[in-house]
């Protein structure tokens, strides 16, 4: 669709306008102006100390994301193929998916202590379940007609899995990865809010505590742009795989 790009531009412009209006109504004590925020974001990106925070968050997020995706797909595939195991595990996984993970944070701290491993663990428990649930659903949702087609064509089990099952399930698995990655980032950042001495989340909470309004806004903006970019990238890959014209 041709108009998508224009729609996006209008949306961004509208948001900036609302932002500016809010600033004019609420004042600099609450939020910073769009332009000042952009400038501060630029300064932060030029600051070496801020890049240490980015590196710390990036490592935790990357590791947590990989664990959530690999583990989630592995468990999801297994539960998808083993219908009985899937039926048994399904209510547990859905419960774990839906409870607010923040209630598990004290437990995570007890188990992993402060620092990197707790951040990673908190990221993983956010991202793991959506990937698992979507993968399980993807395998179960592969149309039975595909199995029959494979058998009529006398394909081996391996060929059926590799050339029919995997591509048929992939778009839905990718949808799970998209949500999983977004939630992993959320989990990692929340992990940094508390009991952490480095990372973008830590920088954000410290800026809030010292009432550095422009810093809070700038870091939030950078996180927003990053999350939206990751989402857009995964969305793009997903669309390419769906072939919806």
């Amino acid at each position, binding site marked *: 669709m041709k108009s998508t790009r224009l729609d996006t531009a209008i949306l961004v412009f509208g948001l900036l306008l609302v932002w500016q209006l809010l600033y004019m109504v609420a004042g600099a004590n609450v939020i910073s102006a769009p332009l000042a925020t952009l400038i501060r974001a630029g300064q932060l990106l030029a600051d070496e100390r801020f890049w240490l925070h980015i590196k710390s968050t990036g490592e935790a997020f990357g590791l947590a994301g990989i664990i959530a995706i690999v583990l989630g797909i592995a468990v999801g595939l297994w539960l998808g193929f083993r219908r009985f195991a899937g039926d048994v595990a399904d209510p547990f996984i859905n419960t774990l998916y839906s409870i607010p993970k923040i209630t598990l944070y004290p437990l995570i701290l007890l188990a992993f202590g402060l620092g990197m491993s707790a951040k990673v663990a908190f990221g993983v428990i956010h991202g793991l379940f959506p990937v698992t649930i979507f993968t399980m659903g993807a395998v179960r949702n592969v149309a039975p007609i595909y199995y*029959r087609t494979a058998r009529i064509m006398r394909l081996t089990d391996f060929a059926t899995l590799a*050339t029919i099952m995997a591509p048929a399930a992939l778009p839905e698995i990718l949808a799970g990865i998209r949500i999983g990655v977004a939630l992993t980032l959320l989990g990692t950042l929340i992990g940094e809010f508390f009991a952490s001495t480095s990372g973008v989340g830590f920088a954000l909470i410290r800026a809030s505590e010292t009432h550095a309004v422009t810093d809070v806004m700038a870091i939030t903006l950078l996180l927003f742009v990053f999350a939206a970019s990751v989402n857009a990238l995964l969305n793009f890959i997903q669309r390419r795989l769906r072939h919806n014209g």
Partner: protein
Amino acid sequence: MGNVDSHISLHAVAKSFPGHDGHPDTHALGPVDLDVARGEFFSVVGPSGCGKSTLLEMISGLSPPTTGTALFNGKPIGGSVPAGIGAVFQQDASFFWLNVWDNVAFGLRRHGIAADEIKHRVNQALAFMGLRAFANAYPAQLSGGMRQRVCIARTLVLRPELLLLDEPFGALDQQTRLLMGDELLRLWRETNATIILITHALDEAAMLSDRIGIMSARPGRFIDIITTNWARDRDSRIVSDERFGAIMGKLWECLREESLRSLKSGS
């Protein structure tokens, strides 16, 4: 149609499905005896739930009969699909992640056919099914009828000697169905394949078939087999032939009571 050279031979074939949670077994089909000659176009009609699809599954080897023997080329059909059988079902089985060309080439690639031969056969099948202009399109961009053509082409390139069709045009509108019927007849003549077609459309059966087997309500048995005596070179225009009306009348006469019975039993 003599039974000189039986391509498919069913002897007292029956199928039951085991009951669950204390329910009794479901007797789905049979016992059925049937001989289909090599190169014959045989259709099966019957009330819904009479076991037509089960019959096709047994012939294809997808699901073995509970009792009786099923022979393909004189050899028993076991629990696996013998070589030389192609099948197209009612549900769309086109692979959404492949374009039309790759969909049609799929089976050939899995069976290690040489690239030149694949190219030759796929292009031939695409031309035959009127899909040449859509070679690069994905199934999502095609209509239901076109997707079904893709599935037929994908089966054709494997050059099956027996083609099993389970209501392949069931989801299509009437005009498309008649035209697809013409294509099916052309395909049947040119490939010399044996075709067994399951259909709920009596006109389709009357127009396409050499013989039509009429099944009873569940457990399905053949209550009659009608020979149409159509010339091998025929097309959908025979619907205006007076013999067409006679065949339709005969089919409905046989089926009316069975359909009522199956309707009353709530299946």
